[in-house]
């Protein structure tokens, strides 16, 4: 297949956009690299090279019309629906169902899409999860309301702080501090009995589950840089949560 520089430039744009959306929303590094090289291959560029880290993508193609581009990833959040959506689009590209322009349009739409569950839903889910986890850790039914309030409010505090400040560590610390404080006040006020279990249950929504999973999966796939840095991010998050809880406990 003959390729002009213009054409390969467009393909690079599609690949980078796909990679960017995946990486920003919690896709594993190996999946991002795999998706980008696959898309390039489907559009007739077999020798694409990519280097992906949690904070940036370097993508280049070889051949007469060789080119390379860099994209910086500064915002990372969790939206697995978008990762699944890009996965789906990439599969359709591989099957030859989409042209370069169509693919770019669909990816751009996927990137702009609103989250499947708005913040209200997420706060409600955090509250419900807190109550359920309290029961799973052998807490009593009477403590469930306290855990739900603490978990929901803490999650909301973390999300609100995360929007205002770009320091993730502080948002997590604040969230777990709020969880601890509400649990403490609930037990003090007689709305709950077992402080430890209420706190453990309602701190669970803050656990960096996606980071843990991705760190392990990236390390397995041989992406040492990404795996280690995601592991470090997960440890940092765990440390922030622990510090927030410790702050409340030391008030006691």
């Amino acid at each position: 297949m003959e390729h002009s520089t213009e054409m390969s430039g467009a393909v690079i744009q599609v690949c980078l956009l796909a990679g960017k959306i995946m990486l920003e929303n919690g896709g594993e590094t190996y999946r991002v690299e795999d998706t980008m090289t696959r898309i390039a291959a489907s559009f007739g560029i077999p020798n694409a090279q990519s280097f992906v880290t949690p904070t940036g993508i370097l993508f280049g193609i070889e051949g007469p019309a060789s080119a390379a581009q860099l994209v910086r990833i500064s915002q990372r959040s969790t939206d697995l629906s978008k990762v699944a959506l890009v996965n789906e689009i990439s599969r359709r590209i591989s099957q030859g169902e989409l042209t370069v322009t169509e693919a770019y349009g669909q990816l751009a739409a996927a990137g702009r899409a609103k989250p499947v569950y708005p913040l209200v839903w997420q706060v409600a889910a955090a509250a419900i999860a807190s109550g359920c986890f309290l029961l799973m850790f052998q807490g009593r039914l009477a403590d469930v309301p306290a855990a739900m309030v603490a978990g929901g409010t803490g999650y909301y505090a973390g999300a609100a702080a995360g929007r205002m400040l770009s320091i993730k560590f502080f948002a997590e610390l604040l969230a777990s501090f709020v969880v601890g404080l509400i649990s403490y006040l609930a037990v003090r006020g007689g709305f709950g009995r077992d402080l430890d279990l209420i706190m453990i249950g309602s701190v669970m929504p803050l656990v960096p589950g996606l980071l843990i999973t991705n760190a392990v999966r990236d390390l397995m796939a041989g992406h040492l840089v990404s795996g280690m840095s995601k592991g470090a991010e997960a440890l940092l998050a765990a440390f922030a949560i622990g510090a927030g809880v410790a702050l409340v406990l030391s008030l006691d």
Partner: protein
Amino acid sequence: MAIRYLEQLLASFIGTAAFGVLFQVPRRTLVQCGLVGTAGWLLNFGLLGQSVDAAIATWASAFLVALLAHGMAIRFKVPVTVFIVSGIIPLVPGGLAYDAMRKIVQNDYEAAVQLGAKAFMLSGAIAIGLVFSEVVLQIAKRARHGSAA
């Protein structure tokens, strides 16, 4: 006893499905996320009830979660992380980490290190469970391709 299992079943199903919402998984996979989480947690709960070592129970549960997740991922054509993330959350040693933190606050560092090491072991068990499922999958894939060739 049956009532306790029923309570755990419901709590883990709703709890892990709620986690699916937190991770923004696609809507059509929410129920399956809950099922994967329930299976993992019930295995963990059952094994702990049989006084199996916590690390082994966690490992086996993470392994089961990852295997089911891979199956679901193929069936529903979505990234496998969608099912793994909410499934392993119940296995995360939150209680141990909390106790370790509590000991640190009380200046009882010796106990804190012990609890922390245990929490670290259980996290490692989750990781090894995930690795094992990947290994099994790769072997299965190779065997299938081998017979086809």
